[in-house]
């Protein structure tokens, strides 16, 4: 168990609490250890139809024809859903908070933009019949050249039906942070240190795959048993897509077999509910493990260029960051993640001159979305690798370099928010203490309360 070191910030801690701060047993643990915890898939209904998706075999292609007849001949197949069945086929998840344009079809119309994109949905009496039906659908494509590189996508011909290959932030092709004057900072600096960092897409890989069962009720409503991380996000998007009043839908969930951000997209519920409405039968749509691994949104691949202007004494006086978030084919939550990434820059350091261009770029890769540490995790890898390179360049201790530049209460961040509740200095001091490293008196005396003279 972790030690709580109360020697830091001792005056700010409220001490006499009854139960907050106690390691009480998890409320759900007994259900977990007995297997009685009820996940969405444990609620079953007789007469349920199984939904399996036909998926694009190309990264980028025009759909010439979809022949569903062979699927309909498979014993047990009840219906195939295509885009024509979807009342409001175009959406974007963050529409609810005013983000546009609608850039993603529930089911594609004339083209597919990534390999694995859902094309049409087969509903059948059994899972095996639905799988066979999906194998029998014949889709003809005309392949188009894909784009897989964010910087190439920025300048190549727009491939989406809606808009540019990048998200437009109030007239800009990126989310910008402008603080101080980086060029002036670079001119003053003793050293310029510049590196490029990047990452691959990362899958959430929850042990329970994304899924739901939609059940039509006698009242005319549809109840959806789902493992979404956000019930109302799902409900509201579904109502818009299905063109039904919000009170026709009910979402039940709350117990999820791992999420990590992977279950905030709204993909399975609208189609399952549509199937339930069109057949008047419960419909289950659960990702297979392979779909979860390759088709569900991963953490975005990112690319960052960091250029630092550094003084001999370790002060970083200018930091310029160009950051590309690979949103994949559709926006989903990436526009928000990119803004979050921009706001996180230049890291927990007070740097007087900061310039950030954070691009949310579309490519023909699997659409990415939120994941634990959204917008930050990869940025931290880049920032903190960069700090190490700066320290080595200067021949400085890496902890001391960070302490010199660490933000303190009252500093202004690059996005112009005043720092409060800072504690970077203290976590470094605490880590040093744990490793038995003795910080020089100047560094041991530092505090987040104020910057030393």
């Amino acid at each position, binding site marked *: 168990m972790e030690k709580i070191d109360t020697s830091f910030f001792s005056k700010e801690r409220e001490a006499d609490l009854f139960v907050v701060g106690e390691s009480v047993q998890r409320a759900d643990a007994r259900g977990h250890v007995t297997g009685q915890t009820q996940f969405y898939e444990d609620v079953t209904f007789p007469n349920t139809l199984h939904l*399996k998706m036909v998926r694009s075999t190309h990264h980028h292609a025009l759909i010439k024809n979809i022949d569903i007849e062979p699927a309909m001949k*498979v014993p047990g197949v009840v219906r195939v859903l295509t885009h024509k069945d979807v009342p409001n086929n175009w959406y974007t998840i963050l529409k609810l908070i005013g983000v546009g344009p609608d850039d993603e079809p529930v089911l594609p119309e004339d083209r597919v933009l990534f390999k694995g994109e859902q094309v049409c949905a087969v509903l059948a009496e059994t*899972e*095996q*019949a639905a*799988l*066979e039906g*999906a*194998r029998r659908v014949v889709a003809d494509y005309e392949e188009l050249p894909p784009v897989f590189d964010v910087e190439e996508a920025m300048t190549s011909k727009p491939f989406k039906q809606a808009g540019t290959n990048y998200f437009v932030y109030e007239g800009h092709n990126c989310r910008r942070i402008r603080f101080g004057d980086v060029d002036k900072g670079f001119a003053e600096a003793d050293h310029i240190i510049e590196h490029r960092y990047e990452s691959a897409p990362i899958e959430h890989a929850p042990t329970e795959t994304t899924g739901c069962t939609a059940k039509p009720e006698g009242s005319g409503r549809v109840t959806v048993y789902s493992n979404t991380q956000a019930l109302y996000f799902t409900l509201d998007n579904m109502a818009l897509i299905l063109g039904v009043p919000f009170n026709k839908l009910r979402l039940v969930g709350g117990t999820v077999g791992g999420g990590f951000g992977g279950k905030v997209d709204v993909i399975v519920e609208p189609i399952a509910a549509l199937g339930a409405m069109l057949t008047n039968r419960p419909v289950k749509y659960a990702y*297979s493990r*392979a779909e979860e691994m390759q088709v569900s949104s991963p953490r975005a691949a990112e690319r960052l260029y960091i250029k630092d202007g550094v003084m001999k004494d370790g002060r970083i006086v200018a930091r310029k960051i160009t950051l590309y978030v690979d949103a994949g084919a559709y926006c989903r939550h990436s526009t928000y993640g990119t803004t979050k990434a921009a706001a996180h820059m230049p890291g927990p350091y007070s740097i007087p001159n900061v310039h950030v261009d954070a691009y949310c770029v579309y490519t023909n890769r699997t659409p990415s979305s939120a994941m634990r540490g959204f917008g930050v995790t990869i940025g931290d890898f880049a920032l903190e690798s960069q700090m190490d390179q700066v320290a080595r360049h200067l021949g400085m201790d890496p902890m001391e370099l960070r302490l010199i530049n660490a933000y303190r209460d009252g500093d202004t961040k690059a996005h112009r928010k005043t720092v409060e509740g800072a504690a970077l200095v203290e976590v470094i001091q605490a880590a040093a203490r744990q490793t038995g490293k003795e910080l020089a008196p100047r560094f041991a005396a530092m505090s987040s309360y104020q910057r030393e003279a």
Partner: protein
Amino acid sequence: MLQTVATPGSLPETHALLSKLDGARLIAGGTAVMPTLNAGTDEFSSLVSLRAAGLSGIVVKDGVVTIGAATTMTELADEPALAFLQSALETIASPTIRNMATIGGNLFVKQPYGDLSACLIALGATATVSDGTATRIEPVEKLVASRLGPKDIVTQLAFSIPSPGSFKFVKAGRKALNAAAIVTVAAVVSVSDGVVSQCRIGLGGVAECAVRARSVEEALTGNPLDRTHAEQAAAKADRDIEPFDDSHASAWYRARVTPVHIRRALVGE
């Protein structure tokens, strides 16, 4: 879609069902076949299980081990005469999978799985194959490279127990346990008069099937079993392997580290 699952009670019955059923696939432990079935497949429409066909069991006689093809990995690990294989078996999947997976099935698992085949090649094991009318004996080395005929069933495997200390094994994977092979090295090396008198090396994870590292064997034979000679011999491995890319490692990486792991298997450093 799957139409039939049969669990015959004898080998002749199994052969009869194999010929009778269209699109039949043999299933033993199920660890390789079932994921395919669960994902939906047109590859086969019936399954014939070997679970009850009487093909399990281990017999040790006069230094030769004969193992029924449906014997599980756990049963192998529990056999005292096969103690030398223990550490190799423990690198294969997990205890739960080893309770299911069989020695016969392991021969036909797609690389980079199927490390036991590399061991069997090193041990010079032979397989008994029955086609319903006749049986034949094939070296495992040859069997894994060719394919079984549609009527063929591997019924048992046999090999001589190597002399103590002569069996060597190293498996390199991305995880300590339950990893697929980047490269698996199994070897039986006999040393007399200070030099390698005989050796047989099986490699897994570095070709479409488990292979024998003949070039390494040749280079090693007649030389002392020390680091220098092992390293020189291991460097010849590129002639024996045809590595591939997968999510575990690239062909380049497999080729680059195969000699390292061969040397480590041979001399432990």
